[in-house]
Each structure stands twice: as structure tokens, then as C-alpha cells.
């Protein structure tokens, strides 16, 4: 799913430095990895939801729509844990057994999926991917060659659906057609293109070959324009401002507070809950 909007609308969150946002998102995700109780991720999810809606000015409809895959995945995680985790039986009927441990751990894992999901959505919907690459190059000291190669890759990616359509069309022209008598009338029309799973593979391979060729040409044109020469100057430098640093500090402090309070209340559980 391509989440990144063509143009990121202005919002307090969109104005923050992309590298700082990415670092905060990464640290929060790692911290959530070690939390295994249902309450803490739920609180972080709520905070993230409010942050994305208010700070990112993301419309509620959009925010809920992009979360649909997370909801589905979280439901699957919860079900499979309830059904397959051994422990105190809550309900038993033949081979089906529901356990208390499964319910608690499943809810914790589902909550974590949703919490990391909302934070990622808040990041992606307020960050322009090219601005992120520019910022990573300037603020995170990512080398010029990988940065610009990735930006060229971004352009390539935008054109892939079009090229895919062209390849499929070109292969359809030469593909064998369904003849009369080979298929039942009415379900599939005569003279339509016969297509198996092999067609997907052939089109994919053609796309790969064509893209490798283009990548080589792109590398040559980037080098002929002087990429890789030092010293380099940049157009429109990106800075990490004091507001960005304050934003990062406040979010991480908030996260630490939630985890700390949960620990003090005895709600917090670590990876030990799994075993």
C-alpha cells in the first residue's frame, strides 16, 4: 500500500525535521517491543492517535481507513494467541481451547501492533519521502551516493506501475487465445487472453531486466553530473531546530512517563509474559 500522499499538507507535525521524527519513531518502536501487557500499548495508541489527528491534522476518516490492515492483523494475532497459547483454560470444547494467558498476551501483541501502526501512520502521512532522504543526507550523514541513489529509486518506483502495465499489454498481444470448445461457453469468452501464474513471473522478470538496465543508465548519468565529487554543497539546507529537539524530548519523555507509571502501578509486563 502506498501511503505517502503526493503532497504533505502543512501541520505542526509536518514541519518537524524528518530525521528527528524517524529517530523518535524508531526509539518508540523498540521500547514497545519490550512491553507485553495490554494496558501500556493501549495508552500509547490513544496518545498516538490524538497526536496524529491534532498534531498532524490528519482527517479522522483517513486515519481510520489507513489503519484497516492493522486492525485486521491485530485481530489475527489476538485469535491465534487465544487459540494456541497453553495456560489456564478459559473455555474448552473438543480440540478448541481458549486460555487466559492467550487472551492477555494476545491483547498485548495486538495493542503493540496498533500502537506501532498509529505512530508509523502519523510519521508517514506527515513526512515527504524526498524531504526525508534530503534530511537523512544532511542531518544523519547518510552518504551522497546512497542518498541520491535512493531518490532515483523513488522516481523509478513511481514509474513501475506504468511499465508493468506496458509489459502486461505487450505480452497480452502475443499471448495464446482461448478457442471455441476448450472452455465452457458463457463463463469465459472465446478469444480472450489465456493467462496463468507463469504470466506474472514472465512480466516480473521483464520488469526486472528493464529496471536493471535503467538503473545502470541512471548511475552513469548521476556520475556524469558529478555525484560523488567532494566537497559538496546543498541547495536549501535542512536544519535541526531547537523546536525539533524539544519535540523529540517531549515525545520520548511522554513515552517514558507512560511506561514508568504503568510500572509503578504494577501493570507493566516484559517479555517474560511469553513463557
Amino acid at each position: 500500500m502506498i501511503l505517502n500522499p503526493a503532497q504533505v499538507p502543512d501541520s505542526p507535525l509536518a514541519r518537524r525535521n524528518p530525521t528527528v521524527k524517524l529517530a523518535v519513531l524508531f526509539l518508540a518502536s523498540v521500547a514497545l517491543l519490550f512491553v507485553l501487557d495490554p494496558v501500556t500499548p493501549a495508552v500509547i495508541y490513544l496518545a498516538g492517535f490524538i497526536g496524529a489527528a491534532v498534531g498532524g491534522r490528519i482527517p479522522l476518516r483517513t486515519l481510520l481507513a489507513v489503519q484497516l490492515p492493522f486492525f485486521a492483523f491485530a485481530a489475527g494475532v489476538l485469535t491465534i494467541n487465544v487459540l494456541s497459547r497453553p495456560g489456564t483454560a478459559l473455555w474448552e470444547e473438543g480440540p478448541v481451547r481458549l486460555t487466559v494467558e492467550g487472551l492477555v498476551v494476545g491483547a498485548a501483541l495486538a495493542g503493540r501492533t496498533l500502537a506501532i501502526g498509529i505512530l508509523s501512520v502519523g510519521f508517514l502521512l506527515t513526512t515527504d519521502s524526498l524531504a526525508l532522504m534530503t534530511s537523512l543526507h544532511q542531518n544523519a550523514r547518510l552518504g551522497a551516493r546512497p542518498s541520491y541513489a535512493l531518490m532515483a529509486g523513488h522516481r523509478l518506483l513511481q514509474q513501475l506501475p506504468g511499465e508493468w502495465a506496458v509489459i502486461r499489454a505487450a505480452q497480452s498481444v502475443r499471448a495464446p487465445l482461448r478457442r471455441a470448445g476448450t472452455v465452457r461457453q458463457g463463463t469465459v469468452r472465446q478469444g480472450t487472453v489465456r493467462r496463468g501464474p507463469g504470466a506474472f513471473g514472465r512480466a516480473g522478470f521483464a520488469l526486472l531486466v528493464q529496471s536493471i538496465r535503467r538503473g545502470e543508465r541512471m548511475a552513469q548519468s548521476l556520475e556524469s553530473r558529478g555525484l560523488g565529487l567532494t566537497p559538496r554543497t546543498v541547495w536549501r539546507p535542512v536544519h535541526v531546530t531547537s523546536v525539533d529537539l524539544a519535540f523529540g524530548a517531549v515525545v520520548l519523555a511522554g513515552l517514558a512517563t507512560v511506561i514508568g507509571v504503568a510500572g509503578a502501578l504494577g501493570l507493566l509486563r516484559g517479555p517474560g509474559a511469553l513463557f
Partner: protein
Amino acid sequence: MTATATTRRTSLFAWQLKDIMLLVVLGAVFGFLYWALVQGWIALSVATGPFGDLTQHVLLGGWLLVAPIAIAIIRRPFAGILAEIIASVIEVVFLGSAVGPLLLVAAALQGAGSELPFALMRYRRYGWLVYAVSGALGAGLVFFYSAFRSGWYGTDLLLLRLVIQVVSGIVIGGLLAKVIVDGLARTGVVDNFAIGRARLGA
């Protein structure tokens, strides 16, 4: 001509832009293909209900493909790890993957697992067995991280998950990679890379 050849041999860690670009292209194309494939896969996932997350393991090997392909074409240390990391960056930043930045950690582990057999062969052997071991290790190494991240430990399905993932790694992430690499070599599109130089004896 001989002079260029010697510099290339000695500078083992000096990457050419062409090589970096190849990693990006592999990441972009496989990211796109996987995305296209997943459209059909979601249906199967929904059809199998709560076991949707189990059936998805069958496709796991698909994530491993970029590493062995990149290693076989570029034949440099860290090509596999970098290929996986770049692919995950494209996945997260450009395609908006749901997993978030933690995918980078998984990708680095996958790349390391896939690269290990090739590194042990000093990037000189590219037989079916090396590819198969690469796929198995790529899937096997990251499994323990995924199991921790997704909380599979302590459930009845842990071993079943490991078996499905390793088999998928060997078939899709190992053997299929060799089929693709050999196909690419035959087209001549990678003749300007290390694989072409080895093939043409330059």
C-alpha cells in the same frame, strides 16, 4: 585495461555507484512485485481466517530474494546485508509498510543470514547448495527475532512456524534466486557487473 582490473580486485570495499544503484533497483522492483502479489494474497489470508498469519509464512522466502541475487551479481562483502536494508528502507519510506522502522532490524538479520554461506565460500561458489543454505539461514536467523517481536514463543505453533519459514526460505529465497540470477546472466543485462566479468572471463 589490465590496470582497471587490478584496482577493482584490490579495492574490495570501494563501491561503485552502479553497484549501489543495482541494490536500489532490486529493492524497488521486488518491493513493487511483492506489493502486487500481496493484493492476491490478502484474499487467501482472509479465507483462512485466524490462521491468516500462518499462511503468510509460506511467502516469507520472497523477502529474502534480493540478498542472494545482489550477492551473486555484485560479489562483494556486505552486498546481501546492504541489499536487504535498502529494500526495507524503500518498503518503509516509499511504500509505507505497516511494520514501521523495526523492519530495518529484521532486514539486516535476513541479509546477514543469507550472506553467510556466500561469505564462507569467499564469494566464489554459486552452486545450488550454497543458494539453498543461504535461503535456509536467511529464514532461520531472522526467525528468532520475529518470534520475539511477534510473541510466538510459548505457543504451540512455534516449531511449525519455523519449519514453514525455513522451507519457504530454501525454495523461494534460495533456489528461486538461482533461477532468477541465471536468467539475468543469460539476458546479458548484468554483464557489466562482477558476475559478467566472471562469466566472460575478463
